[in-house]
């Protein structure tokens, strides 16, 4: 079963790369693989709910330390999010690619499939080594996607992307992994963590900081440069980067390490997470301020993602049940919300080739569905009740209250206000502003209308998804309680 989960996307990738001649069969086959994967991942739920974690050792590169895959609740949730959104992104991708008639699409879908395989690998990693292996695979697989256009700035963006991610991962992450291996002799993810008792508070703090900054994909402030630089990529790639795979993998890694390597109670008693928490808090606010200044739509969304990711890290570092649950929910909610926003940005680009926010006046009338979805997505990101985002923000605030971090609560509320400040004006500009003069002339010729159908449909699905998550909030909460069998 587990082999199928990892093998399927790889097989899909290979199949895709084979039919480079007939685009239709290629798109269908990648779609089918996406759906099959999603069903497969759902198949794991009964066994995980029953409490046993199926494990599988792929190979033994290093004596006593194999490439191990285990399915545990946290990983399963991330896998569901990733595989679910992969389906939507593939549909959207096909529409986008056809719409813009992009070049070498086969390579695009091939790398797409490989990165999803890597994301699944990260989700089900059994020990830190497997996590690191798939983390590197994800970096290398997404590199061709980022430099898809192949022009000068795409290459420059690609170089910063690869440079920062490889340097941080080899420089800090590998070093911290080896250090833990040297101290504890094992790297397996285990309930309650493996470090408690082996290491003092000082080294624990250094280790956790290295892990946090080592995961470049979590975009903590000094190492966030790659995310805006990766905006040169086409929108489905940015969607993949920001919502489905890359950044989510980053924060998920930090979450998994803090829960299964350090152990929640160990972080709480040694206070190892303080540096990382305040770094995340700083990233949170700074990113929101920078997002305000950005006129380019995708740049603004990128900085908003940097901010939202730090919510997850803050939740992880609070080291109490509410914080962790809030962080995990934030992963799901933000994924759903942010992918909607990116789909809208893509749809606007496909329909009107406009990328700057100032050009979006009055498009709301012309593209009602896109802007409505954008509105719902923004609400979910901001965290207002009818959308799923509310739950995660709620639990994060509850977590900070339990941990007695009043300053943190203030910062969280401030950043929510800032979210409102940089998201809602876009919606306002779309609906309430009249079309500018020259566009009005075109309007009669009816050139501006909704993006092609298979761009708009995924939009609406993800928008309804945000609302659905709000309803299923309780179900997710009970599921996450599995993480803490003892409490």
């Amino acid at each position, binding site marked *: 079963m587990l082999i199928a989960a990892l093998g399927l996307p790889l097989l899909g990738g290979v199949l895709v790369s084979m039919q480079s001649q007939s685009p239709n069969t290629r798109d269908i086959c990648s779609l089918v693989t996406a759906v099959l994967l999603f069903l497969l991942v759902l198949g794991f739920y009964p066994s995980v709910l029953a409490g046993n974690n199926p494990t599988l050792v792929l*190979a*033994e*590169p*290093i*004596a006593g330390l194999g*490439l191990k895959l285990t399915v545990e609740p946290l990983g399963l949730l991330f896998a569901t999010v990733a595989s679910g959104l992969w389906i939507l992104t593939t549909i959207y991708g096909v529409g986008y690619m056809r719409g813009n008639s992009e070049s070498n699409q086969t390579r695009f879908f091939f790398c797409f499939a490989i990165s999803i395989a890597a994301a699944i690998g990260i989700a089900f990693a059994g020990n830190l*080594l497997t996590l*690191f*292996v798939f983390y*590197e*695979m994800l970096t*290398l697989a997404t590199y061709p996607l980022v430099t898809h256009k192949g022009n000068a700035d795409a*290459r420059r963006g690609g*170089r910063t992307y690869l440079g920062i991610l*490889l*340097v941080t991962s*080899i*420089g800090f992450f*590998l*070093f911290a992994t*080896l*250090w833990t*291996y*040297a101290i504890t002799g094992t790297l397996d993810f285990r309930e309650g963590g493996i470090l408690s008792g082996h290491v003092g508070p000082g080294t624990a703090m250094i280790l956790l900081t290295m892990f946090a900054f080592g995961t470049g994909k979590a975009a903590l402030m000094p190492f966030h440069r790659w995310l805006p630089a990766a905006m040169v990529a086409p929108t489905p790639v940015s969607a993949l980067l920001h919502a489905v795979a890359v950044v989510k993998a980053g924060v998920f890694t930090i979450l998994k390490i803090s829960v299964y390597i350090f152990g929640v109670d160990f972080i709480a008693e040694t206070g190892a997470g303080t540096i990382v928490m305040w770094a995340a808090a700083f990233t949170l606010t700074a990113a929101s301020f920078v997002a305000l200044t950005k006129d380019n739509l995708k740049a603004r969304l990128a900085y908003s993602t940097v901010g939202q990711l730090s919510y997850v890290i803050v939740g992880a570092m609070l080291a109490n049940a509410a914080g962790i649950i809030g962080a995990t929910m934030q992963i799901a909610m933000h994924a759903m919300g942010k992918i909607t926003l990116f789909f809208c940005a893509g749809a606007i680009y496909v329909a009107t080739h406009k990328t700057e926010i100032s050009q979006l006046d009055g498009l709301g009338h012309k593209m009602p569905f896109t802007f409505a979805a954008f509105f719902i997505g923004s609400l979910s990101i901001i965290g207002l009740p009818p959308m799923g985002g509310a739950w995660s923000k709620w639990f994060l605030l509850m977590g900070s209250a339990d941990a007695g971090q009043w300053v943190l609560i203030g910062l969280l509320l401030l950043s929510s206000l800032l979210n409102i400040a940089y998201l809602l004006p876009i919606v306002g500009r779309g609906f309430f502003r009249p079309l500018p003069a020259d566009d009005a002339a075109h309007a009669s010729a009816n050139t501006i209308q909704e993006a092609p159908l298979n761009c708009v449909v995924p939009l609406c699905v993800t928008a309804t998804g945000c609302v659905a998550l709000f309803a299923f909030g309780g179900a997710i909460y009970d599921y996450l309680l599995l993480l803490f069998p003892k409490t």
Partner: protein
Amino acid sequence: MIEQLPAIVLLLPLLAAPICSMIHNGDYAWYLAAASCWLAAAAAVGLMAQVWGGHTISYHMGGWPPPWGIELVIDELSALVVILVTVFAALVISALRESLRPKMRKHRHSLYYAAYLLCVASLIGITVTGDAFNVFVFLEISSLSTYALIARGRDRRALIASFRYLVMGTIGATFILISIGFMYMVTGTLNMADLAERLPALSDNRVVQASFAFFTVGVALKVAIFPLHLWLPNAYAYAPKATTAFLAATATKVSLYVLIRFLFDVYGLEFSFQQMRIDLLLIPLSIAGILIASLTAIFQTDAKKLLAWSSVGQLGYMVLGVALLNTAGLTAAIAHMFNHAMIKAGLFLALAAMIYRVSSSRLDDLAGIGRQMPLTMAAFTVLGLGLIGVPLTAGFVSKWYLISGALDKGWVPLAAMLIGSSLMALIYIGKIIDVAYFKPCKPEHAEVREISPTILIPCWVFALMSIYFGIDTRLTAGVAGRVAESLLGISS
């Protein structure tokens, strides 16, 4: 037949050499050379099968028992090194035919193959022999054939590089001869196992200490440990194209094997490390070697020089692994011997293919080669990632053991330095990949097209092997682990 295997694995290339020199037609000579190398590789695998799990074979040459006659001793470490030498020699020779064709007259080809086979045979001879003086004799054959191979370089600077290598190599070999003489003077025997029994008793004897000093300096010259490495960059940079692949992969590794064999087996762990404190000398030298070599590699403008300097750096890793004196460190050294040989052979082969087409090894002449020779460059990139130590490649496994070895000893700054140096590797490999893929191609190289399969297949075999041995490490890290434990005297 089976118990004659140690002699057969040596005789195949050694006898193929004179026959090759007699055949005037270049192609037949190549067929014979390739056949003998592949047969020797098969015999080596047979040897490893016999020795798997820690047994040793002793083969009495000429039928005389050891201290009087010469014996061949094969344990897992020597079987691994023999496999390394024979398999990579076979792979490189199958690529050798293409790159030699235009440059030399027919007759010179067969001489070239003869020298190549002699080098392969003598490297096997060094690894397999259990007699100290025999090591000197075969070391001399391998050095002489290496000087001849390097002097065949296209560029006139190859000659001066080969001459300098000859002078330093001969001084090194004579130092080894002096140390063997001293050892013989105080123990009366030349057989390594016999020496191992008698030397510890004489550990405070000045002659033994002097022989230890001379031996280390002599072999350090051959292994190109930091201060004595000056001959290596020029020798590898100007040697004929495909020969560097073979030399880089095996020559220095076998000398490192001799160093390990003598430090641990003949002089014994207590004498060489506790009493003579050789690790206090080796560790700073290897660290300096790694840093300076990697730094110089970054600033090189010539691709082959860059890879040659990176070889010096990687050798520093192996020596550091040996000097760490714990199981993880020694496993790293032995595993890295195999992994680095494989990766460096592939890199030099791919580079040779590109230089063969572009006829210059300067970096800005290789601009845009990624698009013209996609498959070769792809193999180069995979191997380059292996050199950096990206997971799922062989380089990662040995880096992992080395750094965990350093951490086991509690030297965190050393581990940090190792990580830093692998980042330096990232920079200089990235430099080549960046030039190859992202720079526009030069006008006069517009019509460059892919290399012929005879070179492409070995390149890709090396690339796939570097991935395979990143996953299934029973042969490399498994054997290295067992050997490390037996060398350090930890009964597992």
